[in-house]
């Protein structure tokens, strides 16, 4: 079974803490994405990556950074968590552009609460 695995389903952190959300895919996909999902706002793209060590800002990158040191792993980092970052975070992957019709494969999500 192909899979996108997110390291934590539920996290509770305090304001100001540094938070790492990890995502691993086993499909050898070139592209990886981080979205956040909030009620009434749908899915909003935070960052994405086309290749190792490459990253592109999405629609709402402020307050976040990412790291992609290996092809299969894409990490989302909240340098100093704030309460407005309480959300569901979804990681996804897809094949590279030349072979890509756009289908995304999603992880189960990480629900982050910042107190």
């Amino acid at each position, binding site marked *: 079974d192909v899979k996108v695995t997110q390291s934590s389903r539920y996290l509770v952190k305090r304001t100001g803490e540094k938070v790492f959300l990890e995502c691993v895919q086993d499909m050898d996909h070139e592209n990886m994405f981080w979205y956040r999902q909030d009620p009434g706002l*749908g*899915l909003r*793209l935070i960052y994405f990556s*086309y290749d190792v060590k490459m990253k592109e800002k999405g629609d709402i990158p402020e307050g976040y950074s990412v790291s992609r040191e290996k092809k299969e792993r894409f990490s989302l980092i909240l340098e100093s968590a704030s309460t407005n970052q309480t959300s569901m975070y979804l990681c996804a992957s897809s094949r590279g*552009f030349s072979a890509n019709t*756009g289908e*995304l494969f*999603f992880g*189960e999500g990480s*629900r982050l609460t910042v107190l």
Partner: protein
Amino acid sequence: AQKVTQAQTEISVVEKEDVTLDCVYETRDTTYYLFWYKQPPSGELVFLIRRNSFDEQNEISGRYSWNFQKSTSSFNFTITASQVVDSAVYFCALRVMNRDDKIIFGKGTRLHILP
């Protein structure tokens, strides 16, 4: 600019009724893909269907069918004889082929199938 609108925030129907989820998209590009994803209570978005802009044929898969009409920029999704297991949030999405690999999601429609 690209945009996906799902005007129905929440729908409730009784089991065995048919239900249609609306999706309207905006793009000036002529080459694009449209998608539907399902997000059950477990949280993981599951790909349902992909349609490219040159293929306006409707598609049927079991109880699911999709009606793509370029003239109205719509890609509606119908569930026939709904079942409780169809309860989920459904997202419509758009990918434009001459852009990067970003996929734009609608805000989703939450579907409740009542027993």
